[in-house]
């Protein structure tokens, strides 16, 4: 088996390759169309037109009612921060926020900060062993004291999808604003925000084959909004600062392509993911899929390999030209396994070995074949080094050091 030339990139939930068509759309913005869209002259006007075209593409991808509901930002983190900070400023008397334990740090760290420094009460809704939200706890947390609910559409580590429309309607019923971090979901799940109860939605360009450093925040028409960045009148004064025109046009082009390829993500890419997952589960003992296999993104597969550690897996995969990701402590530098694995109650014996393969429309069958061919050997090699693994018996053994 030969390694496909440029390596096998199965870390598309971390970031994606910029689509060549996206790049082609962007390049003129660096050269001939370099004007400032705020300027009166023709140099500026040409760029302004391209930005409005991009806005319409994002509107179409989200199924939004109006293009003016799209605010371009620097990415998912800025969109998340803006959504929450804007809402609590607009509703200063409401001092509670509802979120989930498995959110991205862009939401969790901000909530921690608001709790600590600004006396907000944060309801962090738990999940079950498959990563499904505890709906009873969610309903119990909602009240007229809640300023904003911020719950992700799909989880970045497991791909598990939350019932966003239901959650949004429940939030609306108590008068709370509903925000969703849809960074992983946009482009993979069909959306029609015009008919939705969702008020605010974050998306990130580089997760859908646009460049890094660009994202958008959907702000439903009529929603009370307070900008985080103040300055010029750009983005209808909702996000000051000269527009990152090349990246905005790139995001527009990427949104257009994502809409075209959405069906493919849910058929061909999904089939590749399923084939990879089934082959690994069949060939490797003591491993299991984390998250909810029946309700997740079509491109994501997260397998926990027991009794070995994720960084070691990634290093050996990397030797084989394969890029994946891990919820293990060591890869993040945090020394604690991922908060998502811990929230689902995945035992430590497996959480450290959780390995995420995330595909994209660039993924080929030959690449999947290569991964299927090498994974069992890599796992076996590491288990042969592990004090928790009984090599001869092919199963786990007792190991409890005195120092722990």
């Amino acid at each position: 088996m030969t390694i496909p030339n440029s390596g096998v990139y199965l870390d598309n939930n971390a970031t994606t390759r910029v689509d060549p068509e996206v790049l082609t759309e962007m390049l003129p913005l660096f050269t001939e169309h370099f004007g400032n869209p705020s300027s009166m002259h023709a140099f500026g006007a040409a760029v302004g037109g391209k930005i409005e075209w991009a806005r319409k593409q994002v509107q179409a991808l989200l199924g939004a009612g109006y293009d003016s509901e799209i605010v371009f930002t620097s990415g998912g983190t800025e969109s998340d921060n803006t959504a929450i900070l804007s809402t609590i400023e607009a509703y200063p008397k409401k001092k509670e926020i509802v979120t989930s334990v498995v959110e991205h740090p862009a939401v969790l760290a901000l909530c921690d900060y608001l709790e600590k420094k600004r006396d907000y009460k944060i309801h962090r809704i738990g999940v079950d062993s498959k990563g499904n939200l505890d709906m009873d706890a969610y309903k119990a947390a909602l009240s007229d004291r809640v300023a904003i609910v911020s719950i992700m559409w799909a989880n970045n580590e497991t791909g598990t999808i939350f019932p966003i429309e239901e959650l949004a309607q429940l939030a609306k019923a108590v008068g709370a604003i509903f925000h969703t971090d849809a960074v992983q979901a946009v482009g993979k799940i069909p959306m029609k925000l015009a008919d939705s109860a969702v008020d605010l939605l974050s998306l990130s360009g580089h997760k859908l084959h646009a460049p890094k450093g660009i994202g958008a925040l959907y702000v439903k028409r009529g929603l009370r909004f307070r900008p985080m960045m103040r300055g010029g009148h750009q983005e209808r004064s909702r996000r000051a600062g000269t527009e990152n025109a090349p990246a905005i046009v790139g995001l527009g082009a990427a949104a257009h392509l994502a809409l075209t390829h959405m069906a493919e993500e849910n058929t061909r890419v999904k089939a590749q993911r399923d084939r990879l997952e089934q082959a690994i589960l069949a060939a490797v003992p003591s491993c299991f899929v984390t998250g909810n296999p029946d309700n997740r993104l079509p491109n994501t597969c997260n397998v926990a390999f027991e009794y070995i550690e994720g960084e070691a897996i990634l290093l050996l995969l990397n030797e084989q030209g394969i890029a994946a990701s891990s919820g293990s402590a060591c890869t993040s530098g945090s020394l604690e396994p991922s908060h998502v694995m811990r929230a689902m109650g995945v035992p430590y014996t497996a959480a450290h070995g959780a390995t995420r393969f995330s595909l994209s429309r660039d993924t080929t069958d030959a690449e999947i074949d290569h991964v299927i061919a090498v994974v069992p050997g890599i796992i076996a090699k590491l288990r042969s080094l592990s004090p928790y693994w009984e090599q001869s018996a092919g199963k786990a053994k007792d190991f409890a050091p005195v120092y722990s």
Partner: protein
Amino acid sequence: MWNYTDKVKEHFFNPKNSGVLDTANAVGEVGSITCGDALRLMLKVDPDTQIIQDAKFQTFGCGSAIASSSALTEMIIGKTVDEALVLTNRDIADYLGGLPPEKMHCSVMGAEALRAAIANYKGEAWEDDHEEGELVCKCFGIDAAMIERAVTVNGLTSLEEVTHYTKAGGSCQTCHEKIEEVLEAVMAKTGILKPAAKHSPTGVVGLDAIQPLAAKPAEPAAAASKLTNVQRMQAIMGAIEAMRPQIQRDGGDVELVDIDGKDIYVRLTGACSGCSQSAGTMMGVQMKLVETLGEFVRVKPASLMPAHAN
């Protein structure tokens, strides 16, 4: 991706001496699956010569943990038990051409396993007070519980003291906020809420209370190139003298024995000798001296002095 040296990669991709050693007569087991790192070190020691004839390991952990284990076995085979005991985690890291700061705990685990194995061989009980708790200092793997204990037992009141006693916060320094939170929590509980009194005269508020920042950090760097041997010696003696009251409070003491270039030999006495925290104390002395002198020095126990030095 971590920036591992070629030596680390070599020992990770092709580990030496991995597996089970059936003839082992000394086994050291450290770490836990919860921590994400665990190591079983197996030694075969010749009872007559005390030479470690063979060593094997089994490791659950990341690339650098496996590499550190492999390196450790290579370093100790052929050494006597006493020679092996001298090895520190720093030696393991050096052998590997260095480890990223976040990964230094992997070398610590190797050194701990070695100590545990040798204790096992000698029939001693191996104890360590590492407990589960929120990890605060990632470089040295120090959790909140350990910091709390150090603060409570020793009456520590500053971040600097915590670092000296536990190593926590002594490397990349990104956990200083967390350490201060633990410190504040403990002080609030025990009622020693007076660290501010040290810095500002009581009753004084407003501008008078703000004291100029000590120019300390700038000094050593400037002094480093200028110190004569005598000045350097005096600086070292002064720094150690300044640390003594703190150590004496725990019933121990520290004494400067010799200065040999970058190696500074000290003797820990009283409660310090044989204390499980003595490595931390030595590290604290070392950090204080590095800070004072503005150059890197190594603090070693006097027992490691070359024979001809005395």
